[in-house]
Structure formats: structure tokens, C-alpha cells
């Protein structure tokens, strides 16, 4: 379809295009452009980068961490998915709530609770020491890999589960009827169909590790990592170095982009048309096997739930400075957070509410234009909205402060730049949620409305929008839950007095004030969980309909 200048959609597309160019493309372009600037007479940022072994090591470490965590997460997630898709065992219901657990637990809280349990003065570490077991230091590789694995295995779990569930068992039966043994046929037939999904989740996990800020920063110890160095280059007050910041941000963006392209290629190649046949019925297990499966599933769930339990315990535990008096209960931490210092809470709620509202309006409009008004212009919009997928929060934060620091649109130091960071980070996901139902709305429904005398714009509001409401509600809930927990971009763009809860928690962890951090953490989790419960139970919103 060609671009029609008389259509209101054309004008809306142009307006949105302008917005995306100014607030999304411009900051990203700024990062790349900035990296070629001259760094204190030593040549461009790239020269500094290559010349300093510290940065080269950081790139190597980041890739190594990505590979290690990806392998570990697959090792946990894929078997778990296979077990829960093909077998029934005691406690399987609990395994299925796994995606919700990682969704509701902000990474900064995960890092904090691991420290409370296994840090230098951690609860578990001290118990184990009493019985004579000495654990290696949790700061560094051990902590990084352990903590990240138990967050990111869910992506492997969800991706693989969907693929196995969508698999037609008749293929397996066909293979057996042709003379292959059950084990061999499963290996030969199931694996090639599921493999693309496994690889796609592997690459997703890799990009998440590369971009990870909270865990890398809090648990990294002496391990040099790209995201940590980028952050330090951005906030260091003695040597604020815009060129180096841009260069480091460019490296991580390029790394993620390469992986994303690889992922897209694998997904597009691996898209077998599995005609929906018969889905495998889970086999019921009993005896030893059932016990074993339940044990494995239970252990994974327990470790996933640990942050939640630790944060609840921590929030109600008396503390004197950094010393936790475990076993002495108090509400003083929560009182302080709610009454004496409610600023971070109020900020979080305000910014996230604004970001969610704007992101949903944008998602609805962009989703509609991209899916329903397919032309060159809306295709450009489609590509632009994918940009944030390649940006780590840290890189985005640096792009935003460089782009809007003074100049024609000074946003640095305002609340707007935090809201902007939230919107940009979540837009691709909100868009995907919002547009999921659009594919199921036939063009004829809109045409029916137009033929009955309602102009296209009003047709959208009266006919299409009401049908998008369930998807938009899911998008709103998911945008809200992720923006209130956002740390890596907001910590770079925020200014004094505009701390959000994750930023405050991060600072408190830095000062080793775990009880107060837990109190904020508990409120943060409540702010995430309550909307999810209300949406799914009261309004029956299906949060994950667009993922499978």
C-alpha cells in the first residue's frame, strides 16, 4: 500500500516518526557519534579503548560471563521445561509459577538478598561456617554466575516450554512407526523442532547478561565488566569522560546488536510450520522418579523464592547500622521508609505511572499503524521501535544525558528524563503486547464501520480500541511492573531528590544498610505484586498471552 497524504494515519505516522527520531534515534546516534570524539588529545575513544588492557579485559570478561550464565541457565531451564511439559509429578503446579517469580523480583533485590545470605557477613555463610563449611567469596565469578543463572533460567524455561507444548506428538509417533526407537525418535524429531527456541532463548539470555547492571555492579567484586565500567565512566565525578562513556556504550550496544541479529536469523530459519496436531499428554510419574523430579523442581523453586523470603525477613529485622540482629523483629524499618523518607516511593509511583500511561498510548497507536496500516512509513516506525532492544539501560542513560544535557532541549535534572528513559526501555515490549490482538482483528471490521459512515479515526476509537483493551491492560501491567523496578538507565539520568526505590535500594546496599534496603524492597515488591494480582484475579487479564 502506498502512502496517502490525505489519510489521518499518514499524519499520525509522521508525528510519531518525529517523536521517535528525536527521543530515540537522536540519543543513540549521539552515543555512536560521541565515541569518535577526541579524548583528551589521545585520539578517539576507540583508541583509548584498544590501548588500555583494562577495557579489553572487561570486554572479554563480559563475553565470558555471558557464555557461562547462558550455559548454566540452559542447563537448569531446558530440562525443567521438558519435565513439566512431558511429566506429571508432585508439586508441578509450583514449577509453573516460576515466570511470575522472576517477573516480580527486581534484580537489585535479588542481588541484595544474595548478599544478605551469602555475602561476607551473610546469614547462610555464617551458619555453614559454624558447621565447618567455608564457601568461596560470593563477590566475583561465583556470585555473578549463581545469581544470574537463577534469574535467567526462566527465559530458557519459558521458551523451551512453549516449543515443546506446540510440538505435535504425532511426528514422534510417525518416527516410531517408521522403525526408530522411542528414545531415538524423540532425539531425532523433537530436538530439531525445539532447538531454534532453545537457541533463541540462549541468545536472549546472553544479551541480558551483557546489559545487566544491578547484579554486575553489586556482586561483581573485582571482576572487570563492561556495564560496570560504563557506569563508572558515566558517574565518576573526578574524570567525567563523555567520549569514553560513549565508546563503552557503543561496544555493549554493538555486542547486543550482533547477537540480536543472530537470534532473528535463527528464529526465521527455524520457523518450522508445526501444524497443530495432537499435543503430548504429560505422563504421570510415581515412585522414585516422581520423588526425584519433585525434588529438582522444588530446589529450583526454593532458590527462586529465596530473595522474596529474605527481603520479607530483612524488612522486619532489627538492625543497628549495618549489623542485622536476626531473630529480633521490628516494624521500625518500614515505618521509617513509609513515614520519614517516603520520597523514593512517591517518585517511583509518579514516574512509573506517567511512563506507563504514555507508553500504552504510544503502544496502541504504533501497534495499530505497524500492523494495520502497512506502508513504507510505518515500516520505518517498526524498525525504530526495535532500537531499545539493542540498548542496555546504561547505554540508554548515557545517550539521554548526552543528547538532552543543555542545548535546545535541556532535560537533564528533570523528572521528564527519567520518565523518558522508562518509556524508551519498555516501548518494544509494550508494543509487542499491545499489538498481539491486532493480528486477529480482520480488516473488514474496520471497513464495516467506515462503510456505515464512521470516519477512519473514529472507527479506530470505537471499534478497534475496545478490542485492544485486554492486550493493552496486559501491556500496562507489564510496563508498570518493569518500570517501577528499572535501575540501570534511571541511575544514570536521575538527579538528587529524584531517587526511585531501586536507586535508593542500590545506595543502601552500597552503604551496607540491608534492613532499610529490605524495607524499600518489600514495598517495591508490593507495588509490583498488587497490580498483577488485581489484574489477573479481578479483571482476568492474561499477562502472557502474547508470549506463547
Amino acid at each position, binding site marked *: 500500500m502506498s502512502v496517502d497524504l490525505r489519510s489521518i494515519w499518514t499524519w499520525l505516522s509522521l508525528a510519531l516518526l518525529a517523536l521517535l527520531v528525536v527521543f530515540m534515534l537522536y540519543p543513540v546516534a549521539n552515543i555512536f557519534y560521541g565515541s569518535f570524539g577526541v579524548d583528551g588529545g589521545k585520539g578517539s575513544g576507540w583508541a583509548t579503548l584498544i590501548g588500555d588492557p583494562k577495557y579489553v579485559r572487561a570486554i572479554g570478561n563480559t563475553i565470558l560471563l555471558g557464555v557461562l550464565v547462558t550455559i548454566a541457565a540452559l542447563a537448569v531451564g531446558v530440562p525443567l521445561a521438558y519435565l513439566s511439559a512431558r511429566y506429571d509429578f508432585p508439586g508441578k503446579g509450583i514449577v509453573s509459577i516460576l515466570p511470575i517469580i522472576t517477573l516480580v523480583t527486581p534484580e537489585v533485590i535479588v542481588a541484595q538478598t544474595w548478599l544478605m545470605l551469602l555475602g561476607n557477613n551473610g546469614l547462610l555463610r555464617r551458619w555453614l561456617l559454624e558447621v565447618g563449611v567455608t564457601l568461596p567469596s560470593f563477590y566475583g565469578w561465583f556470585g555473578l554466575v549463581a545469581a544470574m543463572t537463577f534469574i535467567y533460567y526462566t527465559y530458557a524455561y519459558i521458551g523451551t516450554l512453549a516449543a515443546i507444548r506446540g510440538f505435535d506428538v504425532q511426528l514422534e509417533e510417525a518416527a516410531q512407526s517408521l522403525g526408530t526407537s522411542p528414545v531415538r525418535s524423540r532425539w531425532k524429531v523433537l530436538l530439531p523442532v525445539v532447538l531454534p527456541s532453545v537457541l533463541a532463548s540462549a541468545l536472549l539470555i546472553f544479551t541480558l547478561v551483557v546489559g545487566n547492571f544491578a547484579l554486575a555492579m553489586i556482586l561483581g567484586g573485582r571482576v572487570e565488566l563492561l556495564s560496570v565500567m560504563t557506569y563508572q565512566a558515566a558517574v565518576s565525578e573526578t574524570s567525567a569522560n563523555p567520549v569514553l562513556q560513549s565508546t563503552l556504550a557503543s561496544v555493549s550496544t554493538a555486542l547486543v546488536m550482533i547477537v540480536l541479529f543472530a537470534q532473528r536469523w535463527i528464529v526465521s530459519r527455524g520457523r518450522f510450520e508445526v501444524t497443530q496436531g495432537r499435543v503430548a499428554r504429560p505422563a504421570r510419574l510415581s515412585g522414585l522418579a516422581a520423588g526425584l523430579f519433585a525434588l529438582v523442581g522444588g530446589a529450583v523453586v526454593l532458590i527462586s523464592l529465596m530473595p522474596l523470603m529474605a527481603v520479607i525477613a530483612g524488612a522486619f529485622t532489627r538492625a543497628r547500622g549495618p549489623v542485622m540482629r536476626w531473630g529480633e523483629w521490628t516494624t521500625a524499618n518500614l515505618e521509617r521508609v513509609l513515614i520519614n523518607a517516603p520520597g523514593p516511593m512517591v517518585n517511583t509511583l509518579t514516574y512509573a505511572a506517567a511512563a506507563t500511561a504514555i507508553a500504552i498510548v504510544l503502544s496502541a497507536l504504533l501497534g495499530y499503524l505497524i500492523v494495520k496500516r502497512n506502508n513504507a512509513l510505518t515500516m520505518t516506525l517498526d524498525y525504530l521501535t526495535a532500537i531499545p532492544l539493542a540498548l542496555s539501560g546504561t547505554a540508554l542513560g548515557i545517550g539521554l544525558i548526552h543528547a538532552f544535557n543543555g542545548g535546545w532541549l535541556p532535560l537533564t535534572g528533570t523528572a521528564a528524563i527519567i520518565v523518558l528513559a522508562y518509556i524508551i526501555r519498555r516501548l518494544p515490549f509494550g508494543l509487542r503486547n499491545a499489538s498481539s490482538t491486532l493480528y486477529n482483528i*480482520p480488516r473488514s471490521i474496520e471497513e464495516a464501520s467506515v*462503510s456505515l459512515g464512521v470516519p*477512519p479515526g473514529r472507527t479506530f476509537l470505537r471499534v478497534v480500541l475496545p478490542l485492544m483493551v485486554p492486550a493493552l491492560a496486559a501491556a500496562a501491567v507489564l510496563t508498570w511492573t518493569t518500570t517501577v523496578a528499572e535501575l540501570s538507565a534511571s541511575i544514570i539520568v536521575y538527579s538528587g531528590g529524584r531517587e526511585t526505590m531501586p536507586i535508593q535500594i542500590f545506595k543502601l546496599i552500597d552503604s551496607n544498610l540491608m534492613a532499610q534496603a529490605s524495607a524499600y524492597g518489600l514495598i517495591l515488591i508490593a507495588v509490583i505484586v498488587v497490580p498483577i494480582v488485581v489484574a489477573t484475579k479481578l479483571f482476568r487479564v492474561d499477562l502472557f498471552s502474547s508470549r506463547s
Partner: protein
Amino acid sequence: MKIAIEELGIRYDSKRVIDGLSLTIEPGTLFTLLGPSGCGKTTLLRAIAGFVPVESGRLLFGANDVAHLPAHRRNIGMVFQDYALFPDKTVFDNVAYGLRARQVVESAITTRVGEALERVGLVGLDARRPAALSGGQRQRVALARALVIKPDVLLMDEPLSNLDAKLRHQVRATIVELQREARITTIFVTHDQDEALAMSDHIGVMNAGRLEQVGTPAEIYRAPRTGYVADFIGAANVVDVSLATPAVANTAVTAELGGRPLAGHAPQPVPAGAAKLVARPEDIGVSPAVGAAPGAITARVRQRQYLGSKTSYVMTLVGGQKLAVDCWGTGHDSYAVDDEVALSFDPAKTLVLAS
């Protein structure tokens, strides 16, 4: 309202799919655009509705050129193949939708929607949502919704193709009845020739973006102007013949089929040489070869399908050409496979066309 299409040009995906098409549809009649998928009939209908931009030419509703008027200002009623009911709205709200857009007062809406639903035979289903209706009921709601706004033109895009055979006949009757009653100019798109013959005042047979022939159902069936039309309407035999001398329009001609002379009728001029002979299966007579007149065209029975009221045969001519022949009446099943038979052609019903 009279519809006049003048030299219409439509470009779709940078390809000219309709080029200089002209057509007049008389007020109050039902006009069917008939053709195979991809012939441009739906594109033409959607251009008339305003969903496909017109590149050149005029599109007149009465005296107004609506070629460049937005769809929502054309006052059309449209019925879609997939019903296109608003899934979140009740039957009543679906039908009331166009009236509300026209800011009709709510009391008048209640009356008019009630009347419309009664006319399509859907009383008492006002509060249902589309998901709770059968396919036939959905199509009736769609029809009521299009008619209740009293459109100038009713456009129907294969409205019956998603229904099963029995329902199709019922809804077909409802459409014709309502259209006659309201005297509303209607354009109906279909690829089903039975539907076209049964419902239309006039049929336009489309092929590759052009109108091959426009006429009444009887004209299209009895006097197809091209082999394409003959082939598309009814299971006609289109056979290669040759002509010794050119034929003038509307005259009797003698063609040569497999070395034997055959009398036919040329509705248009036909040049000498290769030509096409069109004969309907039911217009070919069959008799035993034994005792047939000398010079008669003979054939051998190849296939035989006994269908109760008639028997359908496939015959092979001496030259190897195949003919479908239907026999009716007493003894219609009296020939067996491999029997030698003589065929007779009614000169008035045997058409000779330019190839």
C-alpha cells in the same frame, strides 16, 4: 440510485489491475460481478466502496462523482464475506451502529433496528453477541446492519461463500427478497455461477480486470460472447472447429468438426479458419450409432455417471476431442461405456465464436 462507472483505472501495489473499465447499473437492480479469484471483481467492488483508491476515471452515484470521496461519506451498505460483525457488541448494537453514526435519535433507532431484524428473520436475538450466533444468523445481522441505514448502494462481497449449501440457499432468497422490496441498487460479487444466475438482474463476467460480457442471466447463459464466458457459466463444451468462409454476425454457419459438417449459429462475426464451438451438455442429442444418418457425428462413450434424473456422459469424438453430454428423459441411462453413438446438435443452441 443509478451507478455509472466511466473509464475506471485502479492501481494496486503499483500494478494496473483495472484499466478503463466502464459499466452502468440501472437503479434498483441487482448486478453481479462474476469471475474466478484474481479477476479483479473484489478490487472493483472495494473501489466502488472507497477502500481502494481510484486512479483515473469517474464513478457516479446518481449524478455525483464519488471516485475521490472518502468511504464513510458515500452512504453505502456493505456486506462482507467474513460478516465483519463487531465482536464486542450485541446484535442490536451492531445493527444500530450506522444509525448512531448518523445521530438518529435513540427511540427511532430502537424501532428501525427492530424492523430490520424482523425483516431478516432474527427476532429475539438482540442481546446476543456474534460469537453466540450461527453462520447464517451472523450473515443476516450483517445484512440488517447494512440495510438499516437505507444506503444508496448495497455492496456484497461473496457474502455466501462461508455458509454451507443449505444455508446458502436460504440467505440467497432473503437477500433477493430484501433487495427487491427496498428497490436498492446492489452489486454482488461472487465466483459461483449458480448464485449469479439465480439472483441477478444483470451479470458482468470479469476476466483479468476486464468485463468479458454484461447481460441478463439468460443472455449470458444462452448467448455467451466468448469461449471464456461460455466456459465459466455452466459446464459448456468449448471445442476447436474450423470455418471454411467467414461468418457475419447473427447468421447460421456450418463449421467442420472432425471432418464432418456441423450447423451452428454465429452471434458475432467470425473470421475463416480456426474457431470455437460452444455447446451445452444438455443441448446435445444422443442416438444409437446403428441406423444413424450418413454423415452424422459419431462418438464413443468413455465415462458414465448415473445421477437419477439424468445421466452424464463423457464422449470422445473421432478426432480425440472430449464432449460432456447430459441425457434427460426416458432411457437417459441406456448407453454403456464403449458404446458407439451418434450425436445431434441443435443449430440454434450451438454457437460458433471467434477463437
